[in-house]
């Protein structure tokens, strides 16, 4: 059997990888290479990636080339007689020392880039990012804005097991959220990153920014976005069942548009605060409750309320197991050491009242037990 096709294939695989890497527009749909990105850091990183890739390719071609030559020429079947040499001090010194200097040459720019990446001083805007199972929370402390960013509704429906919806028909499948982070372009933004439960990692490839969100600790990172646009990424650290379903979407806009967005957000927050003052009807609560449930609860407790036996408890019949007060307490304060979070810190009074009402009436006896937003406010 002839061994050269194997080496030849390895070579041609590398070669085609290269060609692809250098023709990004033609192969853009296939997604073959790191994005060049739209920040100074991401372009530095991309350049370094390409240089190291090429160094590896050149060394690989040389080593596999020698090996292929040897396999073709130094085979017994073509009458090769084995030499008996077993070492060469000169060669061994050369191939220890030369790679060392290549490595030093690679390490210097890498160290420089790293020092730049870790310097988040002189930022002009701070955004606090908190990872939750399984959504991101964005807070702008300077503006009193705080909201959650959940997987978009179309993706959420299509991703269910055997949903019958072809993901190819869903725009930006799994990379769309209900409410993106909004950033002004040309501004040095400092991110403060933490987590509410388990480890997550916030990542936007186009920014070349990725860091783990660690519960109980705050990490820093920064970026300056050069071009307006929508940039997408995903959670990059395994965080449980729906790790694959907590995308990151950042909308970069002009400074003027950013200011408008801030005002609109502040107005909407004031309106929501007033909602707790009035009495809600059961149908209002059920409608809102279903939306809140589908965004926050469905991943564990499932759309039919059955949960996943052994992993996540079911909620069917909860109106008989827990009193209204106990139910509210679990939702507000969570259950320690489980995936059940304290939603009191995440949801508004109206949301909590609605979701508790929904859970008590959606699948079981429908006793029309209600919880009003004002009661939630009192219980906090």
């Amino acid at each position, binding site marked *: 059997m002839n*061994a050269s096709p194997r080496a030849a294939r*390895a070579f041609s695989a590398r070669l085609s990888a290269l060609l692809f890497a250098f023709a990004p527009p033609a192969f853009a749909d296939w997604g073959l290479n790191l994005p060049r990105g739209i920040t100074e850091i991401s372009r530095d990183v991309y350049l370094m990636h390409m240089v190291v890739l090429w160094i590896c390719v050149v060394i690989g071609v040389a*080593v596999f080339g020698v090996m292929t030559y*040897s396999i073709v020429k130094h085979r017994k079947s073509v009458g090769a007689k084995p*030499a008996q040499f*077993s070492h060469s001090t000169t060669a061994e010194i050369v191939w220890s020392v030369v790679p060392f200097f290549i490595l030093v040459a690679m390490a210097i720019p890498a160290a420089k880039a790293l020092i730049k990446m870790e310097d988040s001083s002189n930022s002009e805007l701070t955004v606090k990012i908190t990872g939750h199972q399984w959504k991101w929370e964005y807070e702008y402390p300077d503006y009193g804005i705080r909201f959650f960013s959940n997987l978009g509704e179309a993706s959420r429906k299509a991703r269910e097991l055997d*949903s019958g919806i072809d993901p190819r028909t869903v725009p930006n499948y799994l990379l769309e959220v209900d409410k993106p982070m909004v950033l002004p372009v040309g501004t040095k933004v400092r991110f403060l990153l933490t987590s509410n439960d388990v480890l997550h990692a916030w990542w936007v490839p186009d920014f070349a920014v990725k860091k783990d969100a660690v519960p109980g600790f705050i990490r820093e990172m920064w970026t300056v976005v050069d071009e307006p646009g929508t940039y997408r990424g995903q959670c990059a650290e*395994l965080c449980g069942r729906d790790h694959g379903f907590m995308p990151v979407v950042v909308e970069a806009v002009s400074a003027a548009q950013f200011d408008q967005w801030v005002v609109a957000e502040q107005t909407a927050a004031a309106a929501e605060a007033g909602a707790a003052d009035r009495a809600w009807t059961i149908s209002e609560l059920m409608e809102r409750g279903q939306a809140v449930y589908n965004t926050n609860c469905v991943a564990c407790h499932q759309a039919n309320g059955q949960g996943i036996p*052994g992993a996540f408890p079911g909620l069917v019949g909860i109106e008989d197991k827990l009193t209204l007060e106990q139910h509210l307490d679990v939702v507000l304060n969570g259950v320690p050491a489980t995936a059940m979070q304290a939603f009191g810190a995440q949801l508004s009074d109206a949301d909590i009242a609605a979701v508790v009402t929904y859970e008590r009436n959606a699948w079981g006896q429908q006793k029309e037990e209600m919880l009003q937003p004002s009661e939630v406010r009192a219980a906090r």
Partner: protein
Amino acid sequence: MNAHATTAHHHGPAPGLLRWVTTTNHKDIGTLYLWFSLLMFFIGGSMALVVRAELFQPGLQIVDPHFFNQMTTMHALVMIFGVVMPAFVGLANWMVPIMIGAPDMALPRMNNWSFWILPFAFTMLIGTLFMEGGGPSAGWTLYPPLSLQGGNSLPFVIFAIHMMGASSIMGAINIIATIMNLRAPGMTYMRMPLFVWTWFITAYLLIAVMPVLAGAVTMLLTDKFFATSFFSAAGGGDPVMFQHIFWFFGHPEVYILILPAFGLVSEVIPTFSRKPLFGYDSMVYATASIAFLSFIVWAHHMFTVGMPLAGELFFMFTTMLIAVPTGVKVFNWVSTMWRGAMTFETPMLFALGFVVMFTIGGFSGLMLAMTPIDFQYHDTYFVVAHFHYVLVPGALFGIISGVYYWLPKWTGRHYNETLGKWHFWLSTFFVNLLFFPMHFVGLAGMPRRIPDYAVQFADFNAIATIGAFGFGFAQILLPVIVVMSILGRKKAPARVWEGAHGLEWTLSSPPPYHSFSPQPVVRSRII
């Protein structure tokens, strides 16, 4: 030890099935390890196929994400602790005593015990899949706080890991004791075959780091059940501390999974090149350097946790340094082939495949070592491609190469060379179809450990899944070829391969039940 060696060779194996339960014979125990590893290989492989089947198309078609996470976690635990490590220990059991001219392993009863722990440990580990709430689903790295959530599988998994650790440590002690005490007269350290050398160093790594893993998982246990807070900030602990402890075990573990494979191809390539191994001394020193470096690079697995700049720089520099001794190894293998007289029997094909594809994994490893770029690669399919290149066409091809190399020695019968070559070419074609596209989707932004993905990753994932099933089914050839060799009629001579030189080729095929008694005298390096 001496008393045993002198009395034991008067009797043969116990009759019937009890032979395999009570045996203290290094070859019997080696055989048990190898069959166990093969069984686990198909179990762990089936789990990988569940993962790949789900990833064939975007959307969720087959399994719930919770079960998907159990499959990725269990696949890794089974492949690492149930396949690669037992296969290496099995090969060591069979071959180390023979290669150094010893009658048996130094501690035969402990040898029996260290094997028989494993079936129980893995029954318990895999059994957790059938518990309410399922098996572990936080990844094989068991990072808290995630690993502390969920069902009641955790204590069972931890106990299974403790048992595997005890088994590995006993195996390692046995190998060190054998190599230090039972070498034949004249078999000095610098005359030992490379496979013996790499295992000698690996055994020290095992003894150094398995207790560290045991400590880490025990802290998980007390955090979950005894109200400690090693890894919880709320009680003054730190989740990242687990990662430091885990990877202090984990990085040497990576070399535990590859160094014996370096030894295997260092036996095979000289034999089929009909030429001595190039740079024996530098191979030994390179192995030792890699082992040393493995203790000071651990945090390159966790560049994104938010370490201080000085830490990131330190771990980047030390990690890049590993390329030097690893490069020496590759250059030495190629130089061994240079101006040899090569033939390409199945063991040689797998060894050549190892050199090429392990090197590809080494290149992506070098790219991953560069911290600023690693931020982009980290936790993507680029990493999955990297470590699978190192572990599948790396460690696994090394093991398979060793198995074909010594199979006629073990069974006393030739295996079917044509089928062996089919096994190689099918494996090589499909393994690249499986893992090469993962580089592309990883660079394009697909995170690892996700059960569903954005549609732009669909084409490469479909290709990878086809590769996975092709590779999986091609592996059925391995037990077929082994069984055909056992049942075969074509008798193998003592020296199976024309260019083979070690002591193992001076014994009959199959070797006598008690290997060397009296011990041979070694007068020069014989590889």
